[in-house]
């Protein structure tokens, strides 16, 4: 051990540290300054940035001893006497905080910039934050926040955020309000799972298979168990209950028992006094494998004789969509285009790696602390594996550092519960980035065959689409994802004759499951590319052909549902078209000073279901309680993954109960304290849980109104609940007073409401497969360097129909973040696997968009209300990301004449295509 003395945030500190320790670990573990987050341990993501003698460094690989004698600044040191630093305030005001996990790193990197440069240009900001990643915001709000903070620091007035035009707000709903958790997130006070520490806590590690497919012959853990400091080593023999878990199909071993089916499969788990000892113990476990042939491609996996991933065969699900008479439709067509497309496996790259803590309470119940998208599904699966009733398990949701669908499946939840029971001590399991990458389900790589027929005027007559989705080793949500891919495969258009066949197929790749867009991201690329090709063949305007066929009220979808309302696609198209006219540039153009570059626009549209659909009951329960201090609390188990649900629920309760927004608290995801809000997936929470919160709040208001009516001697109908008061003409009584009076009368001021969304129909039975759809249109401006093949997206014009903007600030963040995420899907991101072995086992091998990729975004909001949605709102989490990829690839076609058929766009390939084109 060595002595470390340094000044942290102006305070002298000292400690004995290990010579190999890094600064981030010492700050977090020795000094308890958990505001500094660790995202990758490889100096790639930048979120661990702190300032050492004023200089930003990646503290995750900065030797702690190198900071001896230095002044270190962390996010905890920015606020002074409870007053936020202008950067912190500006991040809140501009909505530059979503999940909050990267926020400390962004703020500290920005602070170093502003210390050196009080008036940075946008380029200066992009230069300084180049390697500080954020997966939620898309960086637009970050840039604005830094510019605003710079202005404030120069003594200039704050620059308000520029927000899209939306409907006239109500008292609270529709107002651009800051997130309730924003202050905690900008000060470093916000606690994510790894920030929790319990007395006597052990640290766990997982032995992963390391090979993609093998039979297990023997597991010997005796040496690992004998290692000093090791408290437990568990294998499948130690799983008392269900040996498998799974969200839809129970096919995923808690700990592998007969075979391993992918590299990330868990074989054994260890709890030890330190993480290092736990990892050392893993190396002492002997596993004898009989390697089996590997299948790594969904089409090959369906061939006779292909290696079987599961006994019942490799086909997880065949999904069939049929409408009209396909042959007649093609016979009627004047022109037919056919093409094959391929999308890549992609990674959520949420910046917080998975972490779970298990502990056993005095009464023998098991508690699991975890940032999960589906707490009640966790409870069910943990209880099943332990072989105990569900009420013996409590899931306590912590803050979540990004999810995007990647935190729906079980990660360490069951393992820490098993280890806590085995050791009697709290156990923390934190995945390293390298482990997170090879373990958790990804976006499905999908292969498409697309055939589209149209009349000369552009009207579609028939579409035949086949899809093969690589769902990897386990089902996860593969069935549901590929169903959504299939039903959305013909795009947001009315097509009279459609046949779609989709195959979700097991392979020995890393499993694929939920990822923002849920299969529709992939389908949109294929169909929007094909339609672009069709428009070009017919010499039709690419916007016109989409408008001609767009779904509208009265249209019948490919599953036979009639669109009856809230179909804002035509308006989205019109808004983008209008903006394009204002741009005033031709569709394709060049600039005299850069002869090697060509610029062009591309266009695409999309739609996305809100809610589970397909006949699945879609429910959410919310409890609302009013207190005598005038505050209210909304409780439900639904995940805040950065998207802003806490703000939405607070707004709704404040609106309906007439209390100030700041007085509405939200408690999420504690299965003992909060009822089930259902999964945070399918863009459903604003609609389903939002409605539950709205209806619960209305009922509570009615109950309180009866009390207030007595107090004010006024008819119930004439009372107004607003700003923390209940009013009748000139007279008023404080909301908290009404609550107190209710209590005196023995009336409870807590109630819950179980909301059930409109019933839907299973695929193939006709009728409404979904209760609402959101729509979007986007135009992308790209720049292609004809000498190097490099393609960049410079601008996105977007219009999104969300029914109603509950909070325009949060909504804008969702839209910008979605666009930039799928700009990555188009241009940078690919999770590479070679024969089932991930090449992408580090962040340095997965390039997600950095701030330098952020295009200019012009975002329009269309509010075509959904009658049943809260205030007309419908889903928003996924829709904005879906048209981005094809808008970009269609623009690349317009620029170069090269049709992108495989994602992501590869500059190497593109340049060779350009050369081939030139040569003939």
């Amino acid at each position: 051990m060595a002595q470390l003395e340094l000044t942290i945030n102006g305070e002298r500190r000292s400690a004995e540290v290990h010579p190999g320790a890094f600064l981030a670990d010492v700050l977090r573990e020795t000094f308890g300054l958990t505001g500094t987050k660790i995202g990758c341990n490889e100096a790639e993501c930048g979120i661990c940035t702190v300032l050492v003698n004023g200089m930003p460094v990646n503290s995750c690989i900065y030797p702690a001893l190198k900071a001896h004698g230095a002044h270190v600044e962390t996010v905890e040191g920015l606020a002074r006497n409870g007053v936020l630093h202008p950067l912190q305030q500006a991040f809140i005001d501009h909505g530059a905080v979503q999940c909050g996990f990267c926020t400390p790193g962004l703020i500290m990197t920005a602070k170093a910039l502003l210390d050196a440069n009080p008036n940075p240009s946008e380029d200066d900001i992009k230069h300084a934050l180049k390697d500080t990643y954020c997966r939620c915001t898309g960086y637009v709000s970050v840039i604005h926040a830094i510019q605003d903070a710079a202005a404030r620091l120069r003594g200039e007035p704050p620059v308000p955020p520029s927000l899209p035009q939306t409907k006239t707000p109500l008292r609270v709903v529709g107002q651009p309000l800051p997130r309730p958790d924003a202050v905690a997130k900008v000060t470093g006070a916000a606690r994510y799972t790894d920030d929790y520490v319990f007395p006597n806590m052990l640290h766990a590690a997982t032995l992963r298979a390391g090979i993609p497919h093998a039979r297990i012959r023997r597991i010997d853990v005796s040496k690992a168990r004998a290692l000093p400091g090791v408290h437990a080593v568990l294998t499948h023999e130690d799983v008392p209950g269900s040996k498998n878990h799974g969200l839809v199909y129970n096919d995923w071993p808690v700990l592998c028992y007969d075979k391993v089916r992918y590299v990330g499969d868990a074989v054994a788990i260890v709890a030890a006094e330190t993480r290092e000892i736990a990892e050392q113990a893993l190396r002492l476990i002997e596993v004898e494998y009989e390697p089996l042939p590997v299948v790594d491609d969904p089409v090959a996996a369906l061939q006779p004789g292909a290696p079987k991933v599961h006994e019942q065969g490799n086909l997880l699900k065949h999904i069939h969509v049929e409408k009209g008479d396909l042959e007649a439709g093609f016979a009627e067509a004047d022109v037919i285009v056919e093409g094959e497309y391929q999308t890549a496996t992609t990674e959520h790259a949420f910046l917080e790696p998975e972490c779970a803590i298990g502990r056993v309470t005095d009464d023998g119940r098991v508690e699991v602390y975890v940032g999960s998208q589906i707490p009640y599904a966790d409870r069910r699966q943990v209880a099943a594996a332990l072989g105990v009733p569900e009420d013996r398990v409590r899931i306590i949701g912590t803050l979540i550092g990004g999810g995007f669908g990647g935190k729906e499946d079980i990660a360490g939840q069951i393992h820490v519960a098993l280890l806590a029971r085995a050791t009697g001590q709290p156990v923390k399991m934190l995945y390293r980035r390298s482990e997170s990458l090879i373990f958790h389900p990804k976006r499905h790589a999908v292969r498409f065959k697309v055939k589209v027929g149209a009349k000369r005027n552009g009207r579609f007559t028939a579409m035949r689409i086949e899809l093969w989705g690589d769902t990897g080793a386990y089902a996860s949500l593969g069935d549901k994802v590929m169903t959504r891919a299939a039903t959305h495969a013909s795009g947001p258009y009315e097509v009279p004759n459609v046949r779609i066949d989709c195959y979700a197929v097991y392979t020995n790749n890393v499993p694929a499951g939920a990822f923002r867009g849920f299969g529709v991201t992939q389908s949109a690329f294929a169909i929007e590319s094909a339609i672009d090709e069709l428009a070009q063949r017919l010499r039709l305007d690419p916007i016109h052909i989409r408008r001609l066929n767009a779904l509208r009220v009265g249209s019948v979808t490919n599953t036979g549902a009639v669109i009856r309302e809230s179909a804002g696609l035509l308006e989205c198209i019109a808004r983008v078209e209008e903006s394009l006219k204002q741009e005033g540039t031709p569709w394709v153009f060049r600039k005299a000073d850069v002869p090697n570059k060509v610029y062009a626009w591309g266009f695409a549209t999309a739609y996305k279901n809100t809610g589970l659909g397909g006949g699945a009951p879609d429910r959410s329960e919310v409890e609302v309680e009013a207190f005598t201090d005038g505050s209210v609390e909304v409780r439900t188990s639904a995940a805040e993954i950065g998207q802003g649900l806490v703000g939405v629920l607070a707004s709704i309760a404040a609106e309906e109960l007439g209390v100030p927004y700041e007085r509405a608290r939200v408690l999420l995801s504690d299965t003992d304290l909060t009822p089930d809000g259902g999964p945070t997936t399918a863009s459903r929470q604003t609609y389903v849980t939002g409605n539950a919160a709205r209806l619960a709040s209305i009922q509570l208001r009615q109950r309180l109104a009866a009390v207030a009516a007595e107090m004010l001697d006024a008819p119930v109908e004439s009372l107004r609940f607003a700003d923390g008061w209940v009013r009748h003409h000139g007279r008023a009584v404080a909301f908290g007073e009404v609550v107190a009076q209710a209590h005196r009368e023995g009336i409870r001021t807590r109630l819950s409401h179980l909301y059930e969304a409109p019933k839907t129909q299973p695929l193939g039975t006709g009728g409404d497969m979904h209760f609402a759809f959101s729509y979007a249109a986007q135009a992308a401006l790209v720049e292609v360097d004809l000498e190097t093949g490099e393609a960049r997206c410079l601008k996105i014009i977007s219009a999104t129909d969300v029914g109603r903007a509950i909070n325009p600030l949060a909504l804008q963040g969702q839209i910008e973040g979605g666009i930039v995420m799928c700009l990555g899907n188009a241009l940078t991101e690919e999770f590479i696997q070679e024969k089932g072995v991930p090449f992408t086992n580090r962040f340095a091998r997965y390039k997600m968009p950095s701030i330098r990729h952020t295009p200019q975004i012009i975002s329009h909001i269309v509010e075509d209300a959904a009658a049943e949605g809260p205030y007309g709102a419908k889903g928003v989490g996924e829709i904005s990301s879906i048209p981005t990829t094809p808008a970009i690839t269609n623009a690349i076609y317009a620029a170069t004449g090269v049709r992108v058929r495989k994602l992501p766009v590869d500059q190497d390939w593109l340049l060779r295509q350009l050369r081939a084109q030139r040569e003939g």
Partner: protein
Amino acid sequence: MREAYHIPSTLEEAARLLARYGGAARVVGGGTDFFVDEGHQDVSALVDVTRLEGLSDVSYHPPFVVIGCGATHSRIVASPLIQQRGTALAEACGQIGGPQVRNVATLAGNIAHALPAADGTLALLALGGEVMVAWAEGDALRTEWRALAQMFLGPGRSAIDSTRHIIAAMRFLPTGEREASAFARVMRPQGVALPIMGLAVRVRLGEDLATVESATVTAGPAGPVPFCARQCAQVLQGRPLNERVIAEAGEALLAEAQLRDSPHRATRAYRAQVLPVLLRRALHAAYRRAQAAQHQYA
């Protein structure tokens, strides 16, 4: 397990520490590559050479520009001397990582890592860089200047044994009148965070400000070690820098460079297409600068 992390304050002390460990300790600079590579966990002691007296900055010791082994990329980029008279090096170092990495990573570390496409190394090589190697012999400190080109054995294999030797400093002759340098590279946004082709040039023009009096061209990855393209430079020598000559130089460069397919980074065919593009871009930039440097150092 790591037993010690030493931060000596003089070169002598650093060299003696290494000698004392007799091969069990090794030199570390900023560690931005070293600490990411999980293969080094068995090294028991590290000797951090970023804080050695007189060796943490850029200085001018006529006729040389000298860069200490503790000089970070940020220091190099910020040095007016290097910006003006070793421009390629400032450009190359400015493109590595983000500020957090550049604030810590050193050029000496970049050279020790011996990657054939290392940006800073390619630029220093084009500038005709030399490296001062230091070691302890008994109580005596030994130092020796060697040509940078001799520092590399193969991809990731340095001629320096970092358990015994320290790259203490780098130096080059600054560009002078009618002379300039430039760096150009191309990255691939998918796959691996490594440049797929980088190139640096140093050009001196004749009195007519049109003819190339002398040129150095380096490129990578174009072989197992950072590559100096002598044939290409030969083509440029004594010729006016017009498009025809540049194209000819590009062909010579392609003929001598060993380009290859590297999975998830680039195909050989792609590299062959962009290498002449980078050459043209760098030559244009250096040419413009050299013309502007006409009277600067008179």
